[in-house]
């Protein structure tokens, strides 16, 4: 305590009145810190989910064995684009610098669980002779996929007992109904990600077309391209765009495609907007709590402040005390807020499989935001200082 007092005195160039006031009233300090920590927790949770959304969006893209993605010009995500002419694959493959091209079909099924609930699963139809996905498990099981009605399931699929995956891997194939067609899950792989569906199933393109009877082989959802080694990918994508320019498709590097998807989902989709709003609410809660504490503290010390005014202290000095308190509350409240958030991130990540994780940048941004928020509250609370009138002292 004394060491902190001395340190603050050095930093401030005066006695740390705010610190002494705050630490003198321990119960009030504890309430204030709990309030700030709670606001921090709210903001961290929102940002955590937001970050998980953003990170999650990138995961399936990263899982594709591809440098460049050709998709419908109306596509924002991997799921929402119109099918594109398969011709585009052949045209793209002919462009110098392209090493390989493969088409991917994408659709969603409802997978009924034994308890009657339903999992939404995205089905990826791939060419079993090409390497559309990076997953080594998929690569190893491509020969099985070539058989009719055989599927592999993503182990990260949410709300499915892990034991089921273990059984499948142990050789007990699992039959499910997909659009009234029985298919056999013969193996697993790891992909994960996505807020849209609970998980992924990979099948061959032929099986895909049997599950989705209204889809045609001539119209996949996207085409994955590999560049030749040493080829500059962005330049190649630009050349492809020029070459395939017919209005129905757009060519993006994988990084561009991820960025486009993230931008769309965070600004156009309700989930992204709600997380943004939640962050705002968290900050507002913090401002209100800190204001309440600081305004009460000013009101309780009007007599002392009036005395200091009589002694000759200027308005600046009192503003300094309130802002000192604001910054102390912000910094001290941030620490438990951060620790609780780290704990909750771990719990939620374990429970949901969402990639919730703390980044240094986020922690620092929230710390800075907390201090700004506290200072705003402090500035509002200083309006009450005018009530300290030294003429009332005698």
């Amino acid at each position, binding site marked *: 305590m004394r060491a902190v007092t001395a340190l603050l005195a050095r930093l401030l160039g*005066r*006695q740390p009145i705010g610190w*002494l006031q705050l630490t*003198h009233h321990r119960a009030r300090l504890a309430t204030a810190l709990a309030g700030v920590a709670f606001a921090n927790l709210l903001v961290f949770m929102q940002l955590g989910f937001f970050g998980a959304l953003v990170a999650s969006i990138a995961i399936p893209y990263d899982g594709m064995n591809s440098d460049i993605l050709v998709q419908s010009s109306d596509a924002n995500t991997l799921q929402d684009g119109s099918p594109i002419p398969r011709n585009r694959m052949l045209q793209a493959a002919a462009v110098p610098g392209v090493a390989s091209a493969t088409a991917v079909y994408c659709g969603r099924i409802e997978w009924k669980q034994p308890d009657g609930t339903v999992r939404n699963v995205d089905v990826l139809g791939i060419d079993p002779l090409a390497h559309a996905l990076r997953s080594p498990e998929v690569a190893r099981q491509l020969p099985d996929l070539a058989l009719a009605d055989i599927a592999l399931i993503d182990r990260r699929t949410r709300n499915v007992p892990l034991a089921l995956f273990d059984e499948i891997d142990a050789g007990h194939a699992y039959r499910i109904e997909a659009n009234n067609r029985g298919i056999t899950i013969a193996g697993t792989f790891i992909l994960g990600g996505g807020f849209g569906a609970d998980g992924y199933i990979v099948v061959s393109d032929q099986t895909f077309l049997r599950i989705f009877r209204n889809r045609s082989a001539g119209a996949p959802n996207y085409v994955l391209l590999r560049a030749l080694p040493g080829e500059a990918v962005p330049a190649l994508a630009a050349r492809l765009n020029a070459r395939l320019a017919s209005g129905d498709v757009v060519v993006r590097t994988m990084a561009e495609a991820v960025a486009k998807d993230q931008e769309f989902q965070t600004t156009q989709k309700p989930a992204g907007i709600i997380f943004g709003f939640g962050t705002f609410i968290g900050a507002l809660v913090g401002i209100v709590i800190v204001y309440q504490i600081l305004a009460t503290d000013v009101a309780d010390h009007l007599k*002392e402040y009036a*005395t200091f005014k*009589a002694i000759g202290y200027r308005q600046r000095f009192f503003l300094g005390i309130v802002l000192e308190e604001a910054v102390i509350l912000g910094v001290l409240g941030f620490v438990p807020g951060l620790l609780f958030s780290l704990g909750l991130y771990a719990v939620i990540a374990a429970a949901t499989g969402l990639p919730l994780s703390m980044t240094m940048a986020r922690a620092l941004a929230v710390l800075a935001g907390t201090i700004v928020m506290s200072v705003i509250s402090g500035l509002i609370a200083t309006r009450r200082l005018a009530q300290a009138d*030294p003429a009332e002292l*005698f």
Partner: protein
Amino acid sequence: MTDPIAVRGLDHGYGQGETALQVLFGVDLRIGAGQFVVLMGASGSGKTTLLSLLGCLREVQAGSALVLGQELHGADEAARIAIRRRVGFIFQAHNLHDSLTAGQNVRMGLDVHGLLPGADAAAARMLDLLGLRDRIDYRPANLSGGQKQRVAIARALVGNPEIVFADEPTAALDRENGLLVVELLRRLARQRGTTTLMVTHDPRILDYADRILTMSDGRIVQDTSPK
């Protein structure tokens, strides 16, 4: 050398319109440097009003008040703060800050002049002079009434003020402690040549005065110098 306090035709009133109440009427007063002056008078006679005007805690409305050479009538906030820093106040209530120790409270009287290297030592010396050396790290809650008022005196004197304004500093104390406090105040003022204007109702304190002023209904009606 000009007198630290020179007042001419000072009027003062509270409120406006229907509720307006004039409480000071043409007060004339000069106090020479180093004088220990006691101000008496019935309740409501205007003693506190006069003190708060001279100490720049209230704005002068009419007449002239020269304090330490500064005309207070029409003085701006900066000039008023400058005067406040050159004078010391002792109030009826000690008005110490609960969260600060005795030493820290005393330092507040010094730090207003900027952070000085020897501030802690100066505060300790001041408390020592008032017999509170071993109470320097106590908070007000752990001090007796007399001790608190002595800390308040230390806070008022530590910055070496040119004038001390004290308004019934002993009112909250028992007789013994009251006399002790006034005696200390008197001794330090004498040593330092500090001009002192003290309001009191305690007749025993008159023995310490160089000069006794008596107010009645907003006027100074008696001005005697016992010795």
